[in-house]
């Protein structure tokens, strides 16, 4: 709180206003008083107090009503009620209406000073929390922007020139081309990692939830496969897709669903041995759409299985590839935001199967008019953790 705290006392008894003023004199607060609820509320707007001390029992607007209106005007104001008839029930009622604390009459100057001091502390915390939250959101946005532009732009420029160099060295000695190939591959990894980080940081779960629309799972599957193809081809890994016709549909966000699949597919390629095979399948089972990505790679040790969806958990790939440790964590967040779940089964040495389960959307509805988000809430708890 910048400067001294502003305190407003609302009480119909002049003696209370006077004594409160007297008690707080010299404590370094700015003080305002009002002799009824209506004047008090006017001052809440004009004086913008940090703390409002309000008598519950007043003619005209009651303390309760004043409390309620303060909530509506500015819920961050710390309200303290004075209870004339020292009944716990009215104090409890006031606290339910959002009062921070209560002070039974009669009170001593020390009690009053103490409760004000605590209220001021509370107010500082409230304001600090708001400021920190805002800062966190800003940082998240800025970080995403910085990572995406400031970091990615130079990498893209480097890689673009590597591409050219590769063309120009097409007839150069094999070891030279091989070395350049390494540069290019690692640069591609780095670009991929930056992308994953940025998405991990900037994915806004609430935004996903509010942007759900009917999606044929075929679309994100195809986009994800297309995206993974470069890496897969580099490792000689083939990706086979089997999706029934017509494609099962879910209520989802196509962009982030694609992202979730890209991470899982990228992972499958990473843990596939050279020349391996990956199967991507979709099927409707009961009321769910199951999207499975199965690889026949190195697999995951049983001890590590529970940790694969944790952020920053990472294992080197079949060819020693390094990841950001964020991909699967991001995938899980996305899938859960869709009211679904993600599981993994694995046999070391034989491969892993990741299964995304999403609530199915009736496929034969007319056009793209899907039902509202209602089924999501029902199935959210079914999502395996």
């Amino acid at each position, binding site marked *: 709180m910048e400067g001294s705290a502003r305190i407003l006392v609302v009480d119909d008894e002049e003696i209370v206003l006077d004594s409160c003023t007297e008690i707080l004199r010299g404590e370094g607060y700015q003080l305002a008083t009002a002799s009824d609820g209506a004047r008090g509320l006017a001052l809440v707007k004009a004086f913008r107090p940090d703390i409002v001390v309000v008598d519950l029992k007043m003619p005209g607007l009651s303390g309760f009503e004043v409390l309620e209106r303060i909530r509506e005007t500015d819920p961050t104001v710390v309200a303290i009620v004075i209870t004339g008839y020292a009944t716990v029930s009215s104090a409890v009622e006031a606290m339910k209406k959002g009062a921070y604390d209560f002070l039974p009459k009669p009170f001593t100057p020390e009690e009053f000073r103490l409760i004000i001091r605590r209220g001021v502390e509370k107010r500082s915390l409230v304001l600090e929390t708001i400021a920190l939250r805002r800062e966190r959101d800003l940082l998240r946005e800025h970080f995403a922007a910085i990572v*995406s*532009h400031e970091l*990615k732009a130079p*990498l*893209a*420029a480097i890689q*673009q020139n590597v591409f*050219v160099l590769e063309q120009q060295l097409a007839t150069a000695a094999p070891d030279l081309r091989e070395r350049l190939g390494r540069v290019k591959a690692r640069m591609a990894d780095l670009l991929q990692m930056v992308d994953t980080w*940025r*998405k991990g940081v900037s994915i806004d779960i609430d935004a996903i939830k509010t942007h759900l629309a009917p999606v044929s799972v075929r679309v994100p599957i195809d986009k994800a496969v297309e995206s993974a193809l470069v890496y897969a081809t580099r490792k000689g890994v083939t990706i086979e897709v089997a999706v029934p016709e017509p494609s099962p549909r879910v209520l989802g966000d196509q962009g982030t669903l694609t992202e979730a699949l890209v991470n899982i597919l990228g992972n499958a390629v990473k843990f596939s041995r050279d020349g391996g095979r990956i199967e991507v399948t979709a099927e409707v089972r009961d009321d769910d759409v199951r999207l499975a990505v199965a690889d026949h790679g190195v697999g995951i040790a049983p001890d590590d299985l529970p940790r694969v969806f944790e952020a920053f958990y990472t294992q080197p790939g079949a060819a020693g590839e390094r990841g950001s440790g964020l991909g699967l964590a991001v995938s899980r967040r996305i899938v859960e935001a869709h009211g679904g779940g993600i599981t993994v089964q694995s046999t070391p040495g034989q491969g892993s199967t990741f299964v995304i389960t999403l609530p199915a959307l009736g496929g034969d509805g007319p056009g793209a008019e899907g039902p509202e988000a209602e089924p999501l809430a029902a199935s959210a708890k079914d999502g395996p953790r």
Partner: protein
Amino acid sequence: MSERKRLMIIDDDPDFVAGIRAILDGAGYDTEVAYNPKDGFAALKARPHDLLLLDIMMGRGAEGVMMARKLRKDPVLKDLPVLIITGIREQIAFMFPGQAVHPNFVPLNELIEKPVEPDLLLERVRALLKAAETRGQPVA
């Protein structure tokens, strides 16, 4: 190609431009570069071009978007094919070629992400130039 096609590149990153320019020059295109939208627009007005390769994040923000909007309002330049090359696809994620245009964005022909593989770049450039030709529109 009966005559060399003239391509305009507007991008504020000289190193990236050097990369794509080498690819385009190598494929026999005439390339011209502007490192900011203002110079780029002036150059487009001054001489006819067959295609514009446009960066999005320039200067203090998405100046490329403003640039593309301005082009679409220009009576002469509105039909100029535009290939957007952007660092961050998601910022304009709602825009995919051939689909309805995001209300806050601009109509444009194609969008590819940086860095761009030489073959992909040349393929897209070729396709856009061909599409412009078959439209039969004498490009600005």
